[in-house]
C-alpha cells in the first residue's frame, strides 16, 4: 500500500473494513487536504485507483483504470468515468477514455483527479516498438473471441460459417490453429503477402464479410494479427506462460438505481504476470433489467434487485455480484418481522440491506391451504378448515405442519415430485420398470429414509429392473454420457451438458471433467432379459476417451484434484460416497435449494438446479444454513419443518408499500398455480366427484399415478412433464388458451360440478340454504369461509337463477377463480 498523502484516520477501522471489500486490489490514497482536521465520524472521502501499478508489455496492450471513491457516508462509488486523467509524459502514453495506451518505452506516471482528490500511479512501458514474439493461444485467439468470431452464432457454431469453423469461445486451441493455418489452402493466413490474408482482409472489410466490419485497419489488434502472420504464424512460443485464472474487480458492489460501474478484468499467467483483459472478456448479466452490462460497463436500471455479471475470458470465468436496493424510505406501516427461526433472521438481514419491508403474516386459512397443497398436494377439507380456524392455541401452525408431514399423501406427493426429477417415464422404462421405480420412491418417502442413503442406493443400483426399482434409473439414463449429465444435474445441480461437446461457456468444466465423470458409468451393462426388462450391472471399468481428441481420461469426480485410485469392481460406490458426503459442495445445497423453491416459489439459486459459481444465490448465508442443517442427518422432514415454520414461508402475498416489485428476496409470498395433478385432484375434491383413471383402482388420485403417459387430457394440457430431461423445467405452469377453455367449458368438469352425488347435489338434497351452500363451497374450494366478495357474487347468482343452477354457477366461478387455481 502506498499512501501518497494521508490523514491520521486512514488506518482506522473503516479503512480496514474497506480493504476487505476490495480484495483484489490497489491502493493509492489521497485524502482531502483538509482531511486531517476531519474526525472519523464525519467521514473521509478517499479515492482508490486500480491497478496499483501499470505495466504495459508489447504493442497492443492497454490498461483499463478503475477509480473508486469512498463517499463520506462510507459507500463505494465508481467514479472511473467522472475522473480526469493525465499522463506525466505525453510522449510515452496516452489516454483513451479511462484506458492507458502505450506510445513509447519508458517510465511515467498516471495522475487521476476527482473532485479534490488526486492519486498517482506509476506506469512502465516496454516493447512498444517491434513486436515481441506473438503466441497463438495467448495473443491471437483472445482477439478472435473479443471480436465475436468464435461465438455460437457465427464461426463457433458446430457447422462453422461459410466453411470457416472455430471452436466455440476458443476452447480448442489446436483445432483453431489448424483451421486458420492449414485449411483453405493457406488463404486465411498468407505469409507471402500478409495483408491479403483472409484473417485480416475479411474482418477489416477489404473483401466482403458476412459478419461485417470487425477489425479496424491499423488498430492494435489488426497490427498484432499482422505481426503474427509476418512472424510465420507460430503455434506457440517456447516458454510462453499459461493463462491460469482471471480476477475481477469489484467482486460485489451495492449500486444505486440508474448508476454505472466499471468492471476491471485481469488475466493471471503461470509466470506470475498479469494482463488487463477488460476489453477482450465477455460480460453477461443474469438480470439486465436490474443491471445490464456492455463491454465491462454496468448500467443499473430503474428496478431494484440483484444481478450477477458473468465474466468469461478464454475458458476462465469469474462473477461480479451487484445489489441495487430499493430507493426511498422504509415502509412506515410495515409490521415488525419477528423471527420464528434462524431462516427468518437471515431473510430479515437481506431485506434490510435491500431496503424492503416484509408483508404481514398470512391469515390462518391461507396458511392451512398453502401448507396442505405444498406438503401433501391436497386441499384441506371444509371440516379441517373449520377445526383449524376454531383452534385457539398460539402454536397451532407448528402442530398442523407436523400433522401434514405425517399424512399418507405426503409419500404420494413427494414421490410424484421426485419421479419428475428421476425421469420415471413409462414410455422409456416400460410398465414394470416405471411402476417398480415409483413404488420404491414412494417407500423412501413413506418411511422418511435418509436422503443420502436412498440416493446412494440409486446411484449404485444393480439388478433385475422388473423386480428392483432403482435399477431402472440406468435404463432412464442409458449411456455413460447421459448418466454423467443427468445425475450431475439431478443430485449436484451441476449442468455438464455443454461440456460434453466443448468447454462450458459459463463454468470451469472442460471435456476432461465431463468424460472423467462419464467414466464411472462406462462399463454399466443393461442386459435385456425380456421385453422391457433388463439386468443392470457394472461389468468393471472400461477406458473412456474424449471423442474429439481420442485422449484417455481417468475417473475423477467433478472438481476433485486427483483421479480416484483405480479399484476393482463397481466404481459407482466411490462416486456415491463422494457425492453424498456432507462435505460435498453441492449435494446438500441442491436438495436445500430444491426444497426452498418448492415451498417459496423461487429458488435461492435460479434455475434451482444450476449451482454454478457464476450463478450466485440471492441469499448465500441462508442457503448455507439450510444445507448445513440438512447435511447433519439428511432428514427431509427436518428440513421441511425448518422452512415451513419460518415466518418467511408464512407471509401474505399482498404487497406493502415497499415490496410489490420484490421477486427475489421473499419479502412476500410468491403465488403459484397448482401443479397439473394437484389441480385435477383439487377440482375433484372440491366438486365432490372423483376422477377415474384407466387401469387404476377407483379412488386413485392423480398425485398417486405412476404412469406419466396415461392418456388424460387435463394432465396433458396443464403441464404434466414428459420426464425426458432431468430438470424440473419440464413441469411448466405457463398458462395456455387450451387450459382456460378446458376449465371454463369442458364437459368433464361440468359433469363434476353438476353431477349426481357431487357436492352441489348433496347440499341441495340436504335442503341447504344459500348461506350454507356458499359457505360450504368456499370452504371446499378456497379453504376459507366466504368473504364480502364471495357473498356478493353468489347472491347475484342466486337472485338470477333457481338454487341448483345458482349453486352450480357459483361452484363454476370458484373453480375458475385465481384464489382457487393459485396457491396463495
Amino acid at each position: 500500500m502506498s499512501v501518497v498523502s494521508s490523514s491520521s484516520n486512514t488506518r482506522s477501522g473503516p479503512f480496514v473494513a474497506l480493504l476487505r471489500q476490495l480484495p483484489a486490489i490497489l491502493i493509492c490514497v489521497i485524502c482531502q487536504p483538509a482531511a486531517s482536521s476531519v474526525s472519523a465520524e464525519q467521514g473521509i472521502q478517499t479515492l482508490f485507483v486500480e491497478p496499483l501499478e501499470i505495466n504495459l508489455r508489447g504493442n497492443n496492450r492497454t490498461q483499463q483504470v478503475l477509480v473508486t471513491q469512498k463517499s463520506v457516508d462510507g459507500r463505494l462509488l465508481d467514479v472511473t468515468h467522472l475522473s480526469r486523467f493525465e499522463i506525466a509524459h505525453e510522449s510515452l502514453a496516452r489516454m483513451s477514455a479511462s484506458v492507458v495506451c502505450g506510445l513509447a518505452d519508458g517510465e511515467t506516471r498516471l495522475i487521476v483527479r476527482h473532485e479534490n482528490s488526486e492519486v498517482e500511479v506509476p506506469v512502465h512501458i516496454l516493447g512498444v516498438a517491434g513486436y515481441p514474439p506473438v503466441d497463438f493461444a495467448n495473443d491471437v485467439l483472445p482477439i478472435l473471441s473479443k471480436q465475436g468470431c468464435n461465438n455460437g452464432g457465427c464461426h463457433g457454431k458446430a457447422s462453422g460459417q461459410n466453411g470457416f469453423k472455430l471452436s466455440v469461445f476458443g476452447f480448442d486451441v489446436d483445432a483453431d490453429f489448424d483451421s486458420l493455418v492449414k485449411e483453405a489452402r493457406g488463404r486465411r493466413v498468407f505469409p507471402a503477402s500478409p495483408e491479403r490474408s483472409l484473417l485480416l482482409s475479411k474482418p477489416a472489410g477489404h473483401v466482403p464479410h458476412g459478419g461485417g466490419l470487425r477489425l479496424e485497419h491499423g488498430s492494435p489488434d489488426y497490427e498484432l494479427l499482422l505481426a503474427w502472420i509476418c512472424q510465420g504464424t507460430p503455434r506457440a512460443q517456447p516458454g510462453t506462460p499459461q493463462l491460469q485464472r482471471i480476477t475481477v474487480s469489484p467482486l460485489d458492489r451495492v449500486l444505486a438505481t440508474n448508476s454505472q460501474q466499471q468492471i476491471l478484468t485481469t488475466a493471471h499467467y503461470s509466470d506470475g504476470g498479469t494482463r488487463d483483459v477488460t476489453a477482450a472478456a465477455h460480460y453477461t448479466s443474469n438480470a439486465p433489467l436490474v443491471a445490464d452490462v456492455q463491454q465491462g460497463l454496468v448500467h443499473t436500471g430503474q428496478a431494484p434487485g440483484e444481478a450477477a455479471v458473468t465474466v468469461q475470458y478464454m475458458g476462465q470465468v469469474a462473477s461480479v455480484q451487484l445489489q441495487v436496493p430499493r430507493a426511498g424510505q422504509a415502509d412506515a406501516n410495515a409490521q415488525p418481522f419477528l423471527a420464528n427461526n434462524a431462516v427468518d433472521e437471515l431473510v430479515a438481514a437481506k431485506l434490510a440491506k435491500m431496503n424492503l419491508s416484509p408483508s404481514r403474516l398470512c391469515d390462518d386459512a391461507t396458511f392451512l391451504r398453502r401448507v396442505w397443497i405444498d406438503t401433501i398436494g391436497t386441499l384441506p377439507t371444509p371440516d379441517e378448515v373449520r377445526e383449524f380456524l376454531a383452534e385457539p392455541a398460539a402454536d397451532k401452525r407448528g402442530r398442523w405442519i407436523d400433522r401434514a408431514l405425517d399424512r399418507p399423501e405426503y409419500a404420494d406427493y413427494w414421490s410424484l415430485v421426485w419421479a419428475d426429477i428421476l425421469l420415471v417415464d413409462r414410455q422409456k422404462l416400460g410398465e414394470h420398470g416405471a411402476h417398480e421405480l415409483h413404488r420404491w420412491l414412494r417407500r423412501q418417502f413413506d418411511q422418511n429414509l435418509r436422503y443420502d442413503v436412498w440416493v446412494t442406493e440409486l446411484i449404485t443400483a444393480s439388478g433385475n429392473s422388473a423386480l428392483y426399482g432403482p435399477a431402472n434409473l440406468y435404463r432412464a439414463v442409458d449411456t455413460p454420457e447421459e448418466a454423467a449429465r443427468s445425475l450431475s444435474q439431478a443430485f449436484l445441480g451441476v449442468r455438464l451438458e455443454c461440456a460434453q461437446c466443448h468447454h462450458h461457456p459459463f463454468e470451469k468444466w472442460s471435456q476432461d471433467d465431463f468424460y472423467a465423470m462419464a467414466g464411472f458409468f462406462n462399463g454399466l451393462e443393461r442386459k435385456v432379459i425380456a421385453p422391457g426388462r433388463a439386468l443392470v450391472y457394472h461389468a468393471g471399468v472400461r477406458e473412456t476417451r474424449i471423442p474429439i481428441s481420442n485422449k484417455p481420461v481417468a475417473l475423477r469426480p467433478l472438481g476433485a484434484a486427483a483421479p480416484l485410485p483405480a479399484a476393482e469392481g463397481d466404481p459407482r460406490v466411490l462416486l456415491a460416497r463422494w457425492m453424498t458426503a456432507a462435505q460435498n459442495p453441492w449435494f446438500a445445497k441442491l436438495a436445500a435449494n430444491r426444497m426452498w423453491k418448492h415451498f417459496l416459489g423461487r429458488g435461492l439459486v435460479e434455475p434451482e438446479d444450476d449451482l454454478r459459481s457464476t450463478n450466485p444465490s440471492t441469499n448465500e448465508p441462508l442457503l448455507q444454513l439450510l444445507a448445513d442443517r440438512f447435511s447433519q442427518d439428511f432428514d427431509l422432514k427436518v428440513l421441511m419443518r425448518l422452512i415451513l415454520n419460518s415466518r418467511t414461508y408464512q407471509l401474505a402475498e399482498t404487497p406493502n408499500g415497499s415490496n410489490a416489485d420484490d421477486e427475489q428476496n421473499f419479502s412476500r409470498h410468491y403465488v403459484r398455480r397448482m401443479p397439473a395433478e394437484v389441480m385435477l385432484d383439487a377440482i375433484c375434491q372440491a366438486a365432490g366427484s372423483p376422477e377415474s383413471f384407466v387401469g387404476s383402482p377407483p379412488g386413485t388420485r392423480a398425485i398417486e399415478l405412476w404412469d406419466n403417459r396415461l392418456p388424460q387430457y387435463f394432465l396433458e394440457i396443464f403441464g404434466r412433464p414428459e420426464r425426458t430431461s432431468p430438470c424440473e423445467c419440464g413441469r411448466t405452469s405457463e398458462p395456455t388458451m387450451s387450459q382456460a377453455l378446458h376449465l371454463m367449458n369442458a364437459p368433464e368438469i361440468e359433469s363434476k360440478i353438476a353431477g349426481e352425488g357431487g357436492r352441489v347435489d348433496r347440499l341441495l338434497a340436504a335442503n341447504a340454504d344459500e348461506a350454507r351452500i356458499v359457505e360450504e363451497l368456499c370452504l371446499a374450494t378456497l379453504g376459507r369461509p366466504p368473504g364480502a366478495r364471495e357473498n356478493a357474487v353468489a347472491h347475484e347468482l342466486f337472485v338470477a337463477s333457481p338454487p341448483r343452477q345458482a349453486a352450480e354457477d357459483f361452484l363454476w366461478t370458484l373453480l375458475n377463480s385465481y384464489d382457487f387455481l393459485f396457491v396463495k
Partner: protein
Amino acid sequence: MHDLNRRGVLRVGSLAGLGLADVLRLQHAQANPVAPKKEINCIFIFTIGGMAHQDLWDMKPDAPPEIRGDFMPIASRVPGIDVSEILPHMARVTDKLAILRSLTHGDSDHTAGYHVMMTGQHPGFGGNFNRNVQNNNVHPSLGSMVARLAQGSNTLPPYVSVPNFMNSGGPAFLGPSYAPFVIEADPASPEFSVRDVVLPAGVASDRSRRRQAALREINRFERRVEEISRQERSFDTFYDKAYRLMTSAEAKQAFDIEGESESTRTAYGMTSLGQCCLLARRLVQAGCRFVSIENGHWDTHRKNTMSLKELLVPALDQGLAALLNDLDERGMLDSTLVVLTTEFGRTPRINVMAGRDHWPQAFSIVMAGGGLKRGLTIGATDKQAAYVTDRPITPSDMAATVLSALGIDPDTTLLTPVGRPIQLAGGGKPVSELM
C-alpha cells in the same frame, strides 16, 4: 425478476458468447419479433410412416419390376411431369405445384425422421428403429416458430393441429404459449366438434354470461392492480383469448365444417384427410397462420401396393387436389403455402412381404402456392429412385423454404434454455428455384 427466472435468465444469461452487435440484435429480436413482411399462411400435411416416393411422385417405369413396383406413370397437366396412375386428381393440378424429388437425410428412424421433417433439425438421437420417444421438446416445430414470430388474427390461434397432436409438432424451448391449438377430433365424423370451445350441455349462453360476469367480479373485487400478481395477470391474458374464441362468430364459423356446402365437402372427399384439408382452408381463411395435418399410417412394410392403392392414396389424391383447386378458385393459393411431406421415402426394392421399408436417402415432397413457382419438378434421383443425382435438398432447406415463403428470415437466431444460439432452419437455404 420472477419473469426472468428460467427462460428469461437463461436467455439473457446465455448471450455471453455473442458479440455486442449480436446481443443487441437478439435482444431486440426477442423483445420485438420482427413481423413478417407479407401475410402468407401454411397448410402442412404430414403423411406419417414414410410415403413411397417411387410409387407416387418419382416413378421409374424402366426399372425392373421388383424396383418400379406395380404402378405405372401417367401424363399430367404439365407436359413432362408424370405422376403415378393412382394420383388421377393430382395429375390434373400439377400446374399448381412443385414436386421436390431430391429430399435427403440420413436417418431411417421414424422418430428422428418425423422430428427432422417437422422442425428442420435433427433431434440428436435416432438410428434406433421405432424408438418410442415423444420428441417434441428438442427443437421447435415450424408451426411453433411461425406462432412465435408471425402476427396472426387476434381471435383464432396462430398454430392449429388437426386431427390430433403431432409428436414433433410442439414448441420445445419456445414454451407452451407457442404450442399448437389441437383440434382433437376428426372433421369427417358426424359428431365433429372442437373440444372445449362450445359451452357444455346444459349451460345456455345467458347462463354462461352470468358465470363470466361472476368470474370477473370475484377475481378483481376490491383489488388494486398492483396487488394482482404477474402470474394471475398472465392467466388473465389467456382467459381473455379463450373467451374471445368461445364467443367469436368468426371462430365459430371457421370450426363449423357443417356450414360448408355438400358439394364442397364431397369434392374434398368424406375422409379424415379430405375433411382436415377443408377445415384447414376454413381456418386459414379465418386468420390461422399455420395448420398442420397428420395423416397415416403410411408405413407400408407389408402389402405396399394394396395399402397405397386402396387405403391411403385415394383420400390424399382427392383431398389435396380439391384443396389446391379450392384455394385457387378463391384466390387464396398465392397467400397459402401447401406442403405435403413425410419422414422419409421407401426402399427401392420390394421386400418379401410385398412391402417397402424405410429409405431416407432420397424421397419426394410437394409444395404448392404461397407465391412459389408452380408446374415444375426440382431435383432428380437415379434409375432406382435410390440416391439423389441432382440438387440434394435437406430438411433444413425445406424448413428454410417454408419460412421464407411465410416471410420469416430462416437465419433468425433463437436461444435454447442452455443458451445455444439456434438458427430457425438449422442453417438451411431456401430452394431458390422455387422463389
